[in-house]
């Protein structure tokens, strides 16, 4: 269980998270929605302790992330897989080596088992054949899929996806959305947190949705709650209109 307790974060003058509180149920798929620049990526980084709150706490399975010692943080992070928004693959390593990296560093499996696992996740995300390619030779969508394979490979307890389908064509996006559900089904104890702009995908695949606006939660709940909501921010997000409370600059 991941709980945000009135988390505040600012960069210089800019307040990004302004007393953000929500919780993520274990074993479910939770979507965090919000417009660009709303602090979605910042929120994910707080879960991993890559950023620390200025005020408030992030509590995961009963422990505050900011209060862990370095050794505990290391072990804590190893329970997570994270797909970064821009994949963040290591440029100096091939696709195969990128996926192998956490397996070597985190839980040294025998070589043969490691190889089997890499092949398996590469098949799952559909990047078989590009083992020897370097990230610079891949398209945005392919990089994301390799990033996903790298996150999945060590079978983490939590999978964090930062905009898994942005920059992909509709067919691949659909495939990734299905994959998120499939992975979650196959690992019933795994908790998935997906950041997205894509409300339709969130309604179709999410168990629980959280809508961020101006550093706070506007609405959190199951998909039907969102479909029926009269909140102007939610309505605007649904319609994709420029008219409404959300300002676009």
């Amino acid at each position: 269980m991941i709980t945000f307790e009135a988390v505040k974060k600012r960069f210089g003058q800019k307040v990004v998270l302004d007393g953000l509180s929500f919780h993520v149920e274990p074993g479910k798929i939770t979507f965090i929605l919000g417009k660009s620049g709303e602090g979605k990526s910042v929120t994910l980084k707080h879960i991993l302790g890559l950023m620390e709150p200025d005020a408030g706490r992030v509590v995961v399975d009963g422990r505050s992330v900011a209060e862990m010692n370095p050794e505990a943080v290391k072990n804590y992070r190893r329970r997570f897989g994270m797909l970064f928004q821009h994949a963040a693959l290591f440029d100096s390593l091939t696709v195969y080596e990128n996926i192998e990296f956490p397996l070597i560093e985190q839980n040294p499996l025998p070589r043969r088992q490691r190889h089997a696992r890499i092949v398996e996740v590469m098949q799952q995300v559909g990047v078989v054949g590009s083992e020897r390619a370097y990230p610079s030779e891949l398209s945005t969508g392919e990089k994301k899929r390799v990033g996903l394979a790298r996150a999945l490979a060590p079978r983490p307890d939590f999978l964090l996806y930062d905009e898994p389908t942005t920059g992909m064509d509709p067919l691949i996006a659909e495939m990734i959305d299905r994959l998120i559900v499939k992975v979650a089904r196959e690992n019933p104890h795994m908790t998935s947190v997906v950041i997205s702009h894509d409300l339709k995908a969130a309604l179709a695949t999410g168990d629980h949705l959280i809508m961020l606006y101006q550093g706070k939660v506007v609405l959190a709940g199951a998909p039907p709650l969102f479909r029926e909501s009269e909140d102007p921010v939610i309505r605007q997000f649904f319609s994709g209109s420029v008219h409404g409370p959300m300002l676009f600059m």
Partner: protein
Amino acid sequence: MEAKIEYLGRLTIFVRQVLGKMFAHPWRRHLFWQQSLFIGYDSIFIIILTGSATGAVFGLQIGGVFSFFKAEGFIGGATGLALVKELAPLVSGFVLAGRVGSAITAELSTMVVNEQVEAMEAMGIDPLHYLVVPRVWAAVFTMPFLCSVFIFVGMLGVYFVGSGIFAVSEGLFMAKIVELVKTSDILFGLQKMALFSAIIALLACYHGLHPLKGAEGVGLATTTAVVQMLLVILIADVLMSYLQVNLNL
């Protein structure tokens, strides 16, 4: 001024953290070799070029003066001493700062900007241990070796000048080298080079891991890093030479 002091503080903390991790497990031997090869491969040609030119030119200048006193025989010994104690560490330090130091800063800052370093942290891997420690070890071992190459080709350069232009016999040339250049001088030069190597690697990594935001961050980090390396190398050179002369080390 305040910013400069703050910078020095952060740099000191960084250096202390890295030094504290130099012997920490696991010992990543393949990264050490990879970095050593990179350093050698990237700079051996330019070291040979600058080394032979420095030896030849220095020999030519000093030979002109010596021939005035009919003391051309000293050309090898005098150049050897200058190379070993001063010219080789300083010039190869400058060359390696420009060649290897800048490459390290550019590589690491690109990794930061593309969130690769954050991705590493997210996997529970310490970037200081994974990225910085092997580079510092590789620099401290490989660069003094390159400095020896510099000395060797520099001596070849001055040999050709001495025998070709000043008609010094081989026997006299060698005898004066043995007479003037002591083992302690060679050790002093190589120690100095090891210190310059650590300066190059630490500054290169510090600036690489702390680039300014944005695309120009990488370029700016690289320029700042190289300028600081040259300055700090000069300061260290003056200090070490002063100490050696005054304390008779």
